[in-house]
């Protein structure tokens, strides 16, 4: 009886923890952080979080909100939640496009430089005031650096990442309820950029962080850092009203955050959890489990500027030496989606699944390429991994083992997340690293233009003349199909050049309590948690 055995072993674990903590106590001088540590996840909120009204849910999020100011939010987890409170002139639609929100429609001049937005009638802020042209001008100017010495605070508004020069020439009132935005260079994707430029009341810049007033389907009730954010349905919403009356986002932080959320799900004190690693699939109780992808590209990112990785043959050899399907099988039970380039599959319009087939494991070819590059016996290298992401660490371990077959001796070096950001991502002081890179809006640009040679986010120091040309052209072209082709060409170059060993988009789970209607959860192809569609069965 495997089930009985399982229980017996579980009992043994509990007994072991108890014994270990007791043993540690007799030691005296040291606090026990050893094997008894998992027991700390017992510090759960014992009473269900939300005041149990008829129609309210509690959502678990594994990250504290860095701010309530929608323009200044840096963490994807913050923008995801604030989506329920704020809207831009346009907002993200589930299929990866943009739909009108505070603006009802817009026109683009033939040269692609002037956008004229018409404001929607009857849109009101949560305080009841109607949205005016003044509010929109203020919000857009603030995003464009109006209160920040002219350096845009919405990153996609930045034209030149070195000087902080803005893409936007002017933001003016047009006729009646119109707003006219003039650009320095044409940008087909400009409406996408505007999803991050949320509309807030005029001159509320100083108070928006503590009193977030927007136009979204939910309005702010309270926020306690490290604990929870509570929002309630906004009755004056212009669009389809939310189904739920109140939503509590309960914040879980620290190393045991995921374990705590799983236990809270089992205990019924959480109704909805997103971004759950899929290894927890059969531990979440009897709720509905929906499978999704993380919308990022996990890769062995290679510093193209350091030896021996400056030789394309070395990078290709490494790509041939590893076995991506095995990695996917080992680190996420086979549920990840191989990518082959810097594009994740949820971006259906741009994703090229055939690129994942290019480098299938071929040790002979790998050895040949290494020999051609002058490393017939392989070499020593390091794989830096952020220690807080178990899946990245595991991936590093598997890759290191796979590379042994061609004589490459890789050492896995875990570092704290903060160190990873400052030394690897910003400092570019690394050989290779396993991590996941995601996009802050739904444009292909976010995933591709960053690897142009002089881009400030090009942390892998990739440098290719054709790539620079293709991405520069893709950004300014006015022909949508040409842009599509150019971006796809860029994806192919990243694959041909093995700029990094592109692995997969990891699998993750959304878990809903049995009382919620699983069909009501809306998936987006970017970081959005839309609570307005969620409802009880």
């Amino acid at each position, binding site marked *: 009886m*495997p089930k009985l*055995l*399982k229980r017996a*072993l*579980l009992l*043994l*674990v509990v007994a*072991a*923890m108890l*014994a*270990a903590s007791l*043993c*540690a106590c*007799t*030691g*005296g*001088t*040291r*606090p*026990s*952080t*050893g*094997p008894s*540590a*998992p027991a700390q996840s017992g510090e759960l909120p014992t009473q269900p979080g939300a005041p149990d009204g008829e129609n309210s849910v509690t959502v678990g999020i594994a990250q504290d909100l860095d701010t309530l100011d929608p323009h200044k939010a840096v963490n994807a987890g913050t923008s995801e939640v604030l989506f329920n409170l704020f809207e831009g002139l346009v907002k993200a639609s589930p299929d990866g496009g943009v739909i009108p929100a505070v603006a009802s429609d817009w026109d683009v001049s033939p040269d692609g430089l002037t956008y004229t937005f018409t404001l929607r009638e009857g849109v009101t802020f949560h305080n009841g005031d109607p949205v005016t042209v003044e509010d929109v001008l203020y919000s857009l100017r603030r995003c464009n650096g109006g209160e920040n010495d002219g350096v845009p605070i919405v990153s996609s508004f930045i034209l030149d990442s070195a000087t902080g020069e803005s893409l936007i020439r002017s933001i003016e009132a047009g006729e009646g309820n119109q707003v006219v935005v003039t650009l320095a260079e044409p940008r087909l994707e400009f409406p996408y950029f505007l999803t991050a430029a949320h509309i807030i009341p005029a001159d509320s810049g100083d108070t928006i962080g503590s009193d977030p007033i927007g136009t979204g389907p939910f309005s702010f009730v309270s926020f306690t850092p490290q604990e929870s954010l509570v929002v309630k349905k906004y009755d004056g919403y212009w669009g389809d009203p939310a189904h739920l009356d109140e939503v509590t986002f309960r914040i879980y932080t620290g*190393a*045991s955050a*995921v*374990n705590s959320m799983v236990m809270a799900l089992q205990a019924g004190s959480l109704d909805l959890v997103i971004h759950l*690693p899929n*290894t*927890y699939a*059969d*531990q979440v109780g009897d709720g509905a489990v929906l499978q999704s992808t993380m919308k990022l590209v996990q890769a062995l990112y290679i510093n193209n500027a350091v030896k021996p990785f400056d030789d394309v043959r070395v990078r290709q050899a490494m790509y041939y030496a590893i076995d991506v399907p*095995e990695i996917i*099988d*080992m680190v996420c*039970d086979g549920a990840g989606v191989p990518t082959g380039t810097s594009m994740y599959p949820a971006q259906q319009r741009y994703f090229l699944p055939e690129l994942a087939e290019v480098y299938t494991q071929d040790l002979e070819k790998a050895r040949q390429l290494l020999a051609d590059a002058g490393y017939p016996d392989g070499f020593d290298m390091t794989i830096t*991994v952020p*220690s*807080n992401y*178990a899946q990245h*660490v*595991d991936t*590093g*371990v*598997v890759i*290191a*083992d796979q590379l042994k077959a061609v004589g490459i001796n890789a*050492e*896995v*070096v*875990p570092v*704290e997340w903060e160190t990873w950001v400052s030394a690897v991502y910003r400092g570019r002081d690394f050989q290779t690293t396993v991590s996941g890179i995601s996009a802050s809006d739904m444009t292909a640009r976010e995933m591709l233009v960053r690897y142009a040679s002089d881009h400030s986010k090009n942390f892998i120091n990739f440098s290719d003349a054709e790539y620079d040309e293709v991405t520069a052209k893709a950004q300014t072209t006015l022909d949508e199909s040409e842009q599509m082709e150019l971006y796809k060409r860029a994806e192919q170059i990243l694959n041909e050049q093995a700029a990094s060993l592109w692995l997969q988009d990891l699998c993750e789970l959304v878990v809903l309590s049995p009382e919620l209607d699983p069909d009501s959860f809306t998936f987006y192809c970017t970081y959005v948690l839309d609570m307005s569609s969620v409802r009880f069965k």
Partner: protein
Amino acid sequence: MKRKNWYLTVGAALTAVMAAWTILGFFWTPYDPSARSAADKYALPSLAHPFGCDYMGRDIFSRALEGAGTTLTIAAAVLVIGFVFGLLIGALCGYYGGAADAVVMRLCDAVSAFPSILLALVAIALLGRGKYNIIAALGVLFVPSFARLVRGEFLKQRDRDYVKSAKLMGVSDLRIIFVHILPNTWPVLLSGLTIGFNNAVLAEASMSYLGVGVSPTEPSLGYMLSESQAYLLKAPWFTAFPALVIILLILGVGLVGEGVRGQLGVEP
């Protein structure tokens, strides 16, 4: 009347078994500890895999064998560093006393005032990771407790008659410290050593559990526990067996320490 010393017998037997098992791991494991197998993912304990398999289909028995070796090596090295330096500092401070003693002991108090794991984390952040840095960091942190223990014993002994007569006979200070006094402190030092050993094993396990220990490619018992926590409900054997090995290791040595105290009539 002398009662049979069960602590010592059981402890010594258990320690011998665990030591033999760990040493075996240096030479032989049934499988390659890092060999993955998709077919054996989450395999239940069976004859082929006595401890079952983990989420990568790696044999937990082999990993626990090798992991115990890693953990024990680090613990032993930490203990040697802590003990040798602790002994020197404690003996000199205890024997000579005076201002230097006061300063050194206050320094030791200052070090012990911080939780040692916290200090070890700081040290690792400054030195970088790796087996040897962990040994160095933990080793230094173990010095104060031994120093205090040894100093206390030396304070007790230095005014005894045998020391005074040795001094009158013109025996050198160093000889008095290491040849005359030291052997008389062994009973206390031995039980201190066993406690220290257990602390060192747990410290290594904690560091690896917190993800700042040995490299992830090198199995250690603490790192196995850290890996297993996501699978606690799915594959409890993954947590159970490494934890069991840690428990048996420190239980055996702990019982030996208890037995030694009883045998030599030392107040615990």
